């Protein structure tokens, strides 16, 4: 993972010997409303091929995504109109799918779909805003 030099990572032992480098890198901190879905297009994801495509080409690592809720904020309009669901609300973030797109220059874009739900109440749940951090998890391909 030469291109990721300078970013702290960890080494996880594989079950059958050898080692597999895993690096977790914070990409962004963002806000999202409960009951909504946001589509991130993450461009510049590790380009696996810097030459013409060929059958033997393989990416050096794979990228996964994970969003972690940090802070739950209730807007002034909600404070003015309290709801019983507010007491039992829980921030839930879901990344149900990631779409991997090959760009014309052979780099990749990942379309990361993030949905925020109130995990503490049945739909539609309470109204709040979640501040979350989105991490990219890079795993070496051996």
């Amino acid at each position, binding site marked *: 993972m030469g291109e990721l030099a300078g970013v702290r990572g960890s080494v996880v032992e594989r079950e059958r010997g050898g080692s597999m480098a895993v690096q977790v890198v*914070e*990409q*962004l901190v*963002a*806000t999202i409303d409960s009951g909504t879905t946001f589509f991130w297009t993450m461009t510049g994801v590790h380009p696996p091929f810097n030459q013409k495509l060929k059958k033997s080409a393989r990416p050096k690592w794979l990228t996964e995504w994970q969003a972690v809720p940090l*802070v739950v904020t209730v807007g002034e309009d909600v404070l003015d109109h309290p709801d019983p669901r507010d007491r039992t609300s829980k921030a839930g973030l879901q990344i149900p799918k990631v779409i991997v797109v090959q760009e014309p220059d052979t780099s990749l874009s990942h379309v990361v779909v993030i949905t925020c739900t109130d995990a503490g109440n049945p739909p539609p749940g309470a109204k709040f805003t979640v*501040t979350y951090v989105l991490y*990219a998890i890079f795993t070496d391909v051996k």
Partner: protein
Amino acid sequence: MKLRVFYDEAGVIVSVVQVSLKARTQPTSAHYSYIDVDQKETDAQSLAEIHTRFRVNGDGRLQQIPRRGPTTD
């Protein structure tokens, strides 16, 4: 702090974003328009405060949402 504010066609903010200096990717969203703002230019203390207290007006600037009073019903 430099922030990117995404908003819908009605000017309602859908996300306020701070991209990490360590990020290896460039995030974009084809679904919404955006403006770049400096948090110092607002009196907001957090990303969520900008998200909940402001909207984007027709000139592409942040505008504070007037607070409605509590109802008595």
